[in-house]
């Protein structure tokens, strides 16, 4: 039996080596960020990746196809919807068979299991020689270095970057309701409380005879509610934040967190805010907009147009300059004078080259090339002089076809496909109401970046695996109970903090500190 196994192993080894030997020698010419990488003889690269658009046909994605014209590189892509992707990726990598050349690593291989197993090819050499666009990105987003480089110094990823520093999640208010009733647009959390109070007293503002109105309504996308905590200096999305001296502290046991929860509990108990935020789906929230029962909420800035349209079908936000429907407003100032929005981590998606890739240098050049300004912009807002062009005043004018996205025009072409490295960033567009663009310009000044993902030493990963799940379970459960009032945060605070510490709050803080240090 042993002999047989050994024989099989030997055979497999020979087969692998033979396949390496058979790989044609190819030469690659890639001379700068704006130039295409060109391969001496045609090769095919396999990509395993995920997208959220409902288009999985790589061949239809014109933006990418055009970018690759003349490079001699053909891409064979296996594309999955993000919600089905983790199973596929984890299984194939863990099994180590049917591996692609380039893989989108969902979950970033946080504890380095795939990398340590030798599944990913280090990119350092290639980056030095060909990392034209990578270099530019790292200059712009320096913290990302820790996310693409392991604790031992090997670069294993190229990123897809999300830069929502100028308008991510924000507060939005029912403009007409505020306007008609002379309610000031709130600028502080106290003013927000007063405004909600007035809304509550208005009662049946949609006039349907039911008490179905909620001044401040949140759905189960809990990060929206957490965003309000920024006014207390908290970033509950991560759960930890870093101060100006670079010291990390845990938000869940911060005294400011207690104040925040007390504030929310006040809103909930007075009926100013819904206390079933843990279960309200985005559907229910959308139904709420359609039924005109929501006075204010927090959501993606770009969604306010959608919500406005549900509130008043066919509303033309452009003609009212964005002052109508649900209007985005600036961050609120908290009790201690804190005023900020937290953006998402810029490092959103990781792309690695696998050990089965025969032409890792070509794969690297391709990935780097995808971060080229022109491609990044085309994928995000369409092709210049095709989907849009500048008019005499220098404004961008988009074609009807692109704007209306008929027959999924945008997606079919590969718009926002996220299947390869890229950049998601708001580019100002002609059809954006001025109220939004004004806001976008000011928001950037007080947007903070969260503690991003970064590879840390194994002892920290170990801590993360040991403590994180239980800690999260407890604090999230407690958050719900405190806000709903089923547990009294004032009375319980000390024991709550103590239990959090028993569940590893301090150990976890050290992990995030290590991440911050690794990003420097």
């Amino acid at each position, binding site marked *: 039996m042993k002999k047989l196994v050994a024989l099989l192993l030997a055979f497999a080894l020979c087969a692998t080596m033979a396949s390496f030997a058979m790989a044609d020698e190819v030469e690659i010419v890639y001379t700068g960020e704006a130039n295409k990488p060109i391969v001496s003889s045609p090769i095919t690269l396999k990509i395993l990746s995920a997208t959220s658009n409902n288009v999985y046909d790589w061949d239809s994605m014109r933006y990418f196809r055009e970018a690759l014209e003349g490079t001699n590189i053909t891409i064979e892509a296996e594309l999955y919807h993000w919600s*089905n992707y983790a*199973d*596929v990726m984890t299984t194939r990598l863990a099994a180590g068979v049917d591996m692609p050349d380039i893989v989108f690593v969902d979950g970033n291989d946080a504890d380095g299991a795939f990398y340590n197993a030798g599944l990913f090819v280090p990119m350092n050499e290639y980056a030095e020689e060909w990392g034209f666009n990578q270099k530019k990105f790292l200059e712009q987003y320096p913290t990302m270095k820790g996310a693409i480089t392991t604790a031992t110094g090997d670069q294993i990823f190229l990123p897809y970057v999300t830069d929502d520093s100028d308008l991510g999640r924000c507060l939005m208010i029912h403009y007409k309701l505020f306007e008609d009733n002379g309610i000031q647009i709130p600028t502080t959390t106290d003013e927000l409380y007063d405004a909600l109070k007035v809304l509550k007293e208005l009662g049946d503002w949609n006039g349907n005879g039911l008490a179905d109105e909620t001044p401040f309504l949140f759905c189960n996308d809990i990060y929206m509610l957490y965003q309000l905590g920024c006014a207390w200096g908290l970033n509950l999305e991560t759960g930890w934040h870093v101060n100006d001296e670079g010291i990390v502290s845990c938000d869940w046991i911060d005294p400011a967190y207690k104040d925040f929860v007390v504030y929310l509990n006040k809103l909930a108990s007075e009926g100013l805010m819904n206390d079933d935020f843990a279960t309200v789906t*985005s559907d229910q929230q959308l139904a709420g907009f359609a039924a005109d029962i929501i006075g204010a909420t927090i959501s993606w800035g770009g969604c306010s147009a*959608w919500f406005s349209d549900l509130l008043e079908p066919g509303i033309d936000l452009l003609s009212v300059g964005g002052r109508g429907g649900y209007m985005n407003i600036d961050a609120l100032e908290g009790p201690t004078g804190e005023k900020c929005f937290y953006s998402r981590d810029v490092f959103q998606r990781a792309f690695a080259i696998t050990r089965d890739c025969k032409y890792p240098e070509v794969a690297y050049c391709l990935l780097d090339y995808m971060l080229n300004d022109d491609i990044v912009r085309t994928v995000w807002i369409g092709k210049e002089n095709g989907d849009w062009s500048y008019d005499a005043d220098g404004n961008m004018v988009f074609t009807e076809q692109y704007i209306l996205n008929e027959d*999924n025009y945008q997606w079919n072409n590969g718009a*926002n496909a996220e299947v390869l490295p890229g950049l998601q960033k708001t580019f100002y567009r002609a059809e954006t109401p001025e109220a939004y663009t004004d806001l976008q310009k000011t928001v950037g000044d007080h947007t903070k970046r969260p503690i991003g993902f970064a590879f840390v030493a194994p002892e920290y990963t170990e801590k993360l695996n040991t403590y994180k799940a239980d800690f999260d379970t407890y604090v999230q459960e407690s958050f719900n109970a405190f806000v709903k009032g089923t547990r009294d945060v004032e009375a319980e605070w000390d024991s709550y903090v103590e239990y959090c510490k028993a569940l590893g709050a301090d150990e976890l803080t050290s992990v995030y500190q290590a991440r911050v240090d690794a990003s420097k």
Partner: protein
Amino acid sequence: MKTFCRRFNSDIVFRILVVTLAVLAFAVTLYPFIYVVAVSFSSAQAGYSGKVYLWPVEPTLIGYGEAFSDKAMLTYYGNTIYYTIVGTAFNMMATVLLAYPLSRPTFSGRKFLNFFIAFTMYFGGGMIPVYLVVSGVGLFNSRWAMILPTLVSTYNAMICRSAFSGIPDELIESAQIDGANEFRIFRSIAIRLITPTLAVLTLYYAVGHWNEFFNANLYLSKAELQPMQLYLRRLLMQAFIPPNKNIKVEAQEMATLQIRYVTIVLTILPILAVYPFIQKYFVKGIMLGAVKG
């Protein structure tokens, strides 16, 4: 007189109970379906604002338009039908052939084999070892990946086995005395006596293939091999992401609610159309029962 009354009462109560339960079951299962169909044909605004109860409000076909906008839709449907028919045929053959020996009291391997198959219901190697095997025997991106790894459902084999066990021993014994061999007994007696159960199992397997999603997701990465469920599932999940990009709202992006309901209608309708043909066999069973007696 007294007994007559009691009998009369009790049977009346029974009938009332039957009617009530049937009406209740009918209502709770039918209403959501009516609701689903109605929403799938209504405008998103109407669907969201809760105006739809029984009948489409502001009727539109936008949800269906979206679902059928993918030209590969027909391929997906074709694949599903292929996997359902071929898969079920293979399932039934293997299952019946396995269940019959397991039901024979004199079969020497009976005890061992019964345990052998029951054990697999509780212990399996897990997703990755199975993947290694499936891929190792060359089924990755092959139509057989939808058929062979799920060839026998132990659960169904157990049901089939107990149906065979229900055949009176005298019938089989008398056939043996007549000189019929096992194949012959199996083919011309046993199989015929369990038609209703076979109809049920066919339905179970067919529905299983019809709804199969997990293996397809794992083993089939080529669009031309993928079944409809994979497509519907993507459509469904896509509907959960709000668009956060375009300031201008498009009708299509508003269609998300209907799409979810459209997926249900598209899943149910074909099976609904086929069901009566299978159901026929449940009725046929009565006659077989009579023969049996």
